[in-house]
């Protein structure tokens, strides 16, 4: 049999590793292990991308248009809502529709991310139980999956902008720092919600209801200016701040973009601190919760 020799020639060796896990860890070793989780997670970025793509592929397996169904349904919804609300609000459709398309797509990303953040770890239960894997990989997977969906929906924005020739110009590039902040926030949020919802199963329905309420109190389908004097209070809503730092530059000057940045940075810092504090404590226990 020539088989044994063949195996030897193609042997794949596992990467070396070492582990030191103590119960009753000091704060510094908790932080060290949490940082180690992020570092190892970053090294596995190709896995996170593969899993994110895989989720999309499996969600739409066998369908001809695949994720473009989402683009179509978003497009239809934006068109319908656009005609309806521009009549209701008595607004110029060429001004309202680009706003609505952009807001709706960005909001869709944020709310799906929050909702799916809750199942980040519970959906990966079998893997988490059978191999030691950095938890940040699953957070990245949730982010990547939703970014792919966002990527498909961007087509709706592009088409709307093209129809009404509302190109943002160079100023639109100012949306990029906003998107970078979104990435940081998304990872912090999925780590936090993923761990928290694994421990407390009632959280996800609560989160979903909160997001529904936030949809109405955040200017997604209505414009901030419609609030009149109440507009000054909008930056207290973290979702408004986050939405505005990306939307403002793309729509060519939201009056509130500067204050929104201040709010967005403040809320993001808070989110990161809370998320890190919880994750460093919860990390070693997540496997017991799922």
């Amino acid at each position: 049999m020539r088989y044994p020799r063949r195996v030897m020639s193609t042997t794949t060796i596992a990467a070396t590793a070492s582990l030191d896990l103590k119960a009753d860890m000091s704060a510094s070793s908790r932080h060290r292990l949490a940082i180690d989780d992020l570092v190892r997670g970053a090294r596995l970025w190709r896995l996170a991308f593969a899993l994110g793509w895989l989720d999309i592929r499996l969600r739409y397996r066998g369908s001809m248009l695949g994720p473009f169904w989402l683009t179509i349904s978003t497009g239809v919804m934006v068109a319908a809502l656009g005609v309806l609300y521009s009549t209701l609000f008595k607004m110029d459709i060429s001004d309202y529709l680009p706003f609505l398309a952009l807001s709706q797509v960005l909001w869709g990303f944020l709310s799906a991310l929050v909702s799916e953040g809750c199942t980040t770890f519970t959906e990966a239960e079998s893997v988490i139980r059978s191999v030691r894997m950095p938890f940040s990989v699953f957070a990245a997977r949730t982010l990547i999956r939703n970014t792919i969906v966002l990527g498909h929906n961007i087509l709706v924005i592009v088409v709307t902008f093209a129809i009404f020739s509302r190109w943002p110009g160079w100023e639109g590039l100012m949306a990029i720092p906003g998107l970078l902040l979104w990435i940081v926030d998304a990872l912090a949020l999925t780590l936090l919600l993923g761990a928290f919802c694994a421990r407390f199963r009632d959280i996800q329905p609560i989160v979903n209801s909160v997001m529904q309420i936030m949809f109405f109190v955040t200017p997604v389908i209505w414009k901030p200016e419609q609030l009149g004097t109440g507009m000054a209070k909008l930056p207290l809503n973290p979702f408004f701040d986050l939405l505005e730092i990306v939307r403002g530059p793309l729509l060519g000057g939201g009056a509130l973009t500067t204050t929104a940045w201040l709010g967005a940075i403040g809320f993001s810092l808070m989110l990161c601190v809370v998320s890190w504090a919880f994750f460093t404590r919860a990390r070693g226990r997540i496997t017991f919760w799922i």
Partner: protein
Amino acid sequence: MAVRARIEVENVSVWFPLYHGSSRSLKKMVVAAASGRLGQDQQQRVVVRALQDINLSLEQGDRLGLVGSNGAGKTTLLRVLAGIYEPVTGRLRVQGSLNALLDPSLGMNMELTGRENILLRGLYNGLPKPMLPRLEEDVAQFAELSDFLDLPVRIYSAGMVVRLGFALATAIKPQILLMDEWFLAGDAVFLEKAKHRLEEMVRGADILVLSSHQVEIIRDWCTRVLWLDQGKIRADGAPQAVLSQYLGTPLEIA
């Protein structure tokens, strides 16, 4: 590369709090069965004491067999060694690359083709890109799926799935090999070739920890046996001594 493989387990206990059950009726049970494995932790939560005060030290060359009745804690101990369950008390130190064969279908996705599953496994193991073709070649060659390798696993026969799963699990050679019993169950259906591959992997590992109900396998492969009972170490020593104690009868020398 090549650090000396070593495992050091000091006073490790693992408790499973029962979070998502109805803990009120469970609390009644705990009071009833005060001496059993169910108990309460400091926060008055109902817990299953899966492992209690385990001490264990393994050096290069050790081949440890785990025996014990159902629910004794063998799988849990393997998960602790793999770093999956972090200890509730005590300390675990592991040096050397590790591969834990715990779940036969780890990361296998029925909708993907065999080839895609191989690549995915490579990614799970964090293999650098240049190593992926090698992994693919090795698994493809062993599983002998030929044209089916490019078809979804969903349409494979049961035996083909087993072959692929086995080839994947045994493709990456670690210094420390942890094996749960599923892997050896139904030895009869394994081809001679599969046994050969497994033995090669076992021989290549610096440390082996193996859980099995099949005493013959433990006797053949292990140099040391740990008898777990109710989450505690009941006996630890040479296979002959521990196994005869475990079986309640002296073991005839093969």
